[in-house]
């Protein structure tokens, strides 16, 4: 039978507020256990939540970025369940009246076309703490530093039809929230996590099949792998005439398999009701418009502009626009050099290679955009050849690695001088060097003159090498012209 895959994603993105959603404690990652949990986060008797309006501003910003309805009256509800790292015995979330209603984003498919995916809703809620199972002699420890970190949970419509589409959607959401600056997007620290709802149905059938939910997948690659392996599993069950159990599953990346976590029958009745400690959030058009005025250029718009204004290829534009920091870096360097294609080549070449090698973010690269821009300028005015430019770039990276990073543009020029990389383009000077080379290598000259005319192009190679060795940084273009002229004069 031919099966159709139906996927919907729930993405949790931690909002980049300084303090928590209902308390003044810091949200910074990596502190000692329970040092960033105040009385509210610990759920002590008598404490009360106070809503952090910065989380509201960020959620509204997100809603506007995906062209969604903004909830002018949103309400916090209590979702009741007992769990050791849920300090109050309930999670404060939004059930019936979320801050963000129906919206949509477009994802790019492999065949170059794009597909619109509707976003059902996005709501504000608080993150839970963490249970720590090692180091307590068989018992568990609880770290509540993360408890109360603001989240937006972004729920898609079940409109994704393959693991690839799901991963493209996750990437696009990542790109949008990081563009907006409302989430740091650090997947390894759990800043964005994804629950994948997967089901199959016979092609052509309207009704959805029974779905499973794969919880807490935390990388683009694992979203794709987890869904693919779950599709395979479900297909095997269905092809064998079995039925799918509605349940929550975990993805084990090491074994590349999903396994059952708990089935729906034993799941909690969450007994939602409006939180009486928090007032409904009421916002008006003025508020919404004020937030709208702070929206940056979003990835789709930027990609389009790169193609239309800078004549980049669709592929170059997509890569460069995928991250706001990368795009900003590219644009600053390109403007300085007044050459967008040259900058695009460099950012996708040496810059990306260095980022991958050092496993760092563009913001941590020891060569900043202004410095790259200066290097590109020097290529354009023939001061540097391509090899020299790479040497300067690598020298700056090496300084950074040695902890001696210098972020000034002047440093580029200083390195060009001290490393003797300045290209000699003065024809007179090059003529003198070439004359020396020819005079000192009579045998080579003789060999050259004995070479048939049609093969002389290749025989010129050794002279080029010798000339460049004799004078570092000579402009190879000029060397070629001078050599040709001189050798022709000889016969």
């Amino acid at each position, binding site marked *: 039978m031919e099966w159709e895959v139906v996927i919907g994603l729930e993405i949790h993105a931690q909002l980049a507020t300084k303090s928590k959603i209902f308390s003044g404690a810091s949200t910074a990652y990596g502190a000692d256990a329970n040092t960033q949990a105040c*009385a509210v986060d*610990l*759920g*002590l*008797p*008598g*404490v*009360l*939540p*106070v*809503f952090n309006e910065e989380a509201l501003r960020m959620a509204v910003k997100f809603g506007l970025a995906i062209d969604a309805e903004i909830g002018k009256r949103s309400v916090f509800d*209590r979702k*009741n369940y*007992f769990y*050791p790292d849920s*300090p*109050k*015995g*309930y999670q404060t979330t939004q059930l019936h009246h979320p801050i963000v209603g129906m919206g949509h984003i477009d994802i790019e498919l492999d065949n170059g076309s794009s597909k619109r995916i509707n976003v059902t809703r996005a709501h504000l809620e608080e993150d839970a703490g963490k249970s720590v199972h090692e180091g307590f002699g068989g018992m*568990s420890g*609880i770290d509540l530093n993360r408890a109360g970190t603001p989240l937006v949970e972004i729920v898609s419509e079940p409109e994704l039809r393959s693991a690839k589409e799901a991963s493209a959607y996750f990437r696009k959401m990542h790109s949008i929230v990081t563009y907006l600056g409302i989430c740091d997007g650090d997947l390894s620290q759990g800043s964005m996590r994804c629950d994948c709802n997967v089901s199959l149905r016979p092609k052509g059938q309207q009704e959805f099949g029974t779905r499973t939910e794969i919880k807490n997948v935390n990388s683009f690659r694992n979203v794709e792998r987890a869904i693919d392996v779950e599709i395979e599993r479900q297909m095997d069950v269905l092809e064998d005439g079995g039925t799918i159990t509605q349940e929550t599953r975990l993805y084990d990346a090491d074994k590349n398999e999903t396994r059952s976590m708990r089935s729906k029958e034993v799941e909690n*009745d969450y*007994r*939602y*009701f409006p939180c*009486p*400690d*928090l*007032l409904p959030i009421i916002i008006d058009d003025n508020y919404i418009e004020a937030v709208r005025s702070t929206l940056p250029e979003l990835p789709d718009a930027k990609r389009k502009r790169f193609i239309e204004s800078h004549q980049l290829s669709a592929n170059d534009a997509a890569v460069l626009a995928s991250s706001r920091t990368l795009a900003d870096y590219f644009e600053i360097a390109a403007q300085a050099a007044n050459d967008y294609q040259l900058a695009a080549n460099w950012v996708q070449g040496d810059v990306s290679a260095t980022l991958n090698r050092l496993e760092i973010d563009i913001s941590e690269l020891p060569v900043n955009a202004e410095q790259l821009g200066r290097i590109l300028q020097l290529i354009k005015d023939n001061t540097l050849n391509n090899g020299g430019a790479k040497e300067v770039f690598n020298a700056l990276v090496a300084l950074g690695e040695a902890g001696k990073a210098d972020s000034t543009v002047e440093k580029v020029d200083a390195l060009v001088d001290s490393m003797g990389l300045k290209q000699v383009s003065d024809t007179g000077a090059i003529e003198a060097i070439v004359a020396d080379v020819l005079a000192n290598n009579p045998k080579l000259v003789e060999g050259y003159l004995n070479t048939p005319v049609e093969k002389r192009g290749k025989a010129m190679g050794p002279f080029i090498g010798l000339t460049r060795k004799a004078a570092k940084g000579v402009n190879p273009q000029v060397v070629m012209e001078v050599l040709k002229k001189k050798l022709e004069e000889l016969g």
Partner: protein
Amino acid sequence: MHNKTIAQIARDLAAGEYSSVEVTQSYLDRIQQLDHNYNSFITVTAEQALAQAAAADAMRAAGNATPWTGVPMAHKDIFCTNGVLTSCGSRMLSNFVAPYDATVVANFNNAGAVSLGKLNMDEFAMGSSNESSFYGAVHNPWQLDHVPGGSSGGSAAAVAARLVPGATATDTGGSIRQPAAFCGVTGIKPTYGRVSRWGMIAFASSLDQGGTITRTAEDSAMMLNVMAGFDPKDSTSMQQDVPDYTANLNDSIAGLTIGLPKEYFRDDLSSNMQQQVRNAIAEYEKLGATVKEISLPNTHLAIPVYYVIAPSECSANLSRMDGVRFGHRCDDPQDVNDLFKRSRGEGFGEEVKRRIMVGTYALSAGFYDAYYKKAQQVRRLIKNDFVEAFKQVDVIMSPTTPSPAFKAGEKTSDPVAMYLEDIFTIAINLAGLPAMSIPCGQVDNLPVGLQLIGNYFDESRLLNLGHQFQQVTDWHQQTPADLV
């Protein structure tokens, strides 16, 4: 000394009649000698109180005294007090030393008041007889085999027995007014949102409100001056100016209209009770007020609505008591669910468990619409009754309770009979209005309370009415016969 009111002590301290250390020591001695009769205190903080008193005396000597500097008082054990056991009357919190002060507690500390300790209460404020406390029942100073009312039974008994001149209290369905009526003292529950709930352990968040129990309306005004106000730490507290509640105490009440809701003067109310309350209203007429019968047609729905909303909210509010981070933890838990189940099973008493069960049921999938949602809709109708009534009258009066204090043990096996105790007080919490109970008579040597219900943020008027009544009557000065 122990018969003096807060206002008198404040005047004496200002006049240098005695020091704060002296008055504090005299109350501490009295608590030590007499409280075994009443069991009104859970914790007496003698050392801390004397240190606060000495600091207050020094402050006064330096010329920095406020009206509250050095005046003794005590807190219901529902308010978190930094470094002091805050048990909420429960085994669950019998080891909980709060690491912070409730806003109400901090306000009194900042005003220079001296806290003598923490007062007994029904477990988690759930009860109308103060028999559900883990620390034992409180006894009514008027007749020791009678209940003091609840949940603020410790506050009311301590004030009635002259162990403290004034106490904080809380009221979710009548927990200030009913014990005040039973013990012959004055109690006010302010408008919802008037007093911060930060650090006040939640029972039912949308109904809970902190207030006071004192002997006179004037003392209540003095306490409210310290307690009331907006608190950025409580999202439900109101950003509304706080008047000086003592400023209008002496205003004439001539020309005011008193509404008497016919639903509160039912035939089954004992004729003795009726008579006492009618007599009190006649006093007001003598003072120039006029009386008008009104109707609050949804009154009969108040108790069922309350017993859906309050347990629902409490079922979630009490979930944090799970044995993980603080409070009672069972021995040798086998796994996390065993830890939750046994810690809670052992830590909570019967009435608390009953309400958690009721609330959990009311919020369950499939029942939410029929119970919680419906109750919230009816709550709005009850509130509208009052809004309509206050278009015609300035204040509403009724008995505080259907009968005077009952005997200990009489209603413990019949929860519904106990719930009906709050029949005249509960609707006020559902509407969020301010209300007060003042002593207005006696039946069989037990006090009777008159309930005064005000419009939103009209506490000043209630205090004015209470004070004027207490200028022409002496019910508030009566003391239990066998009181030393």
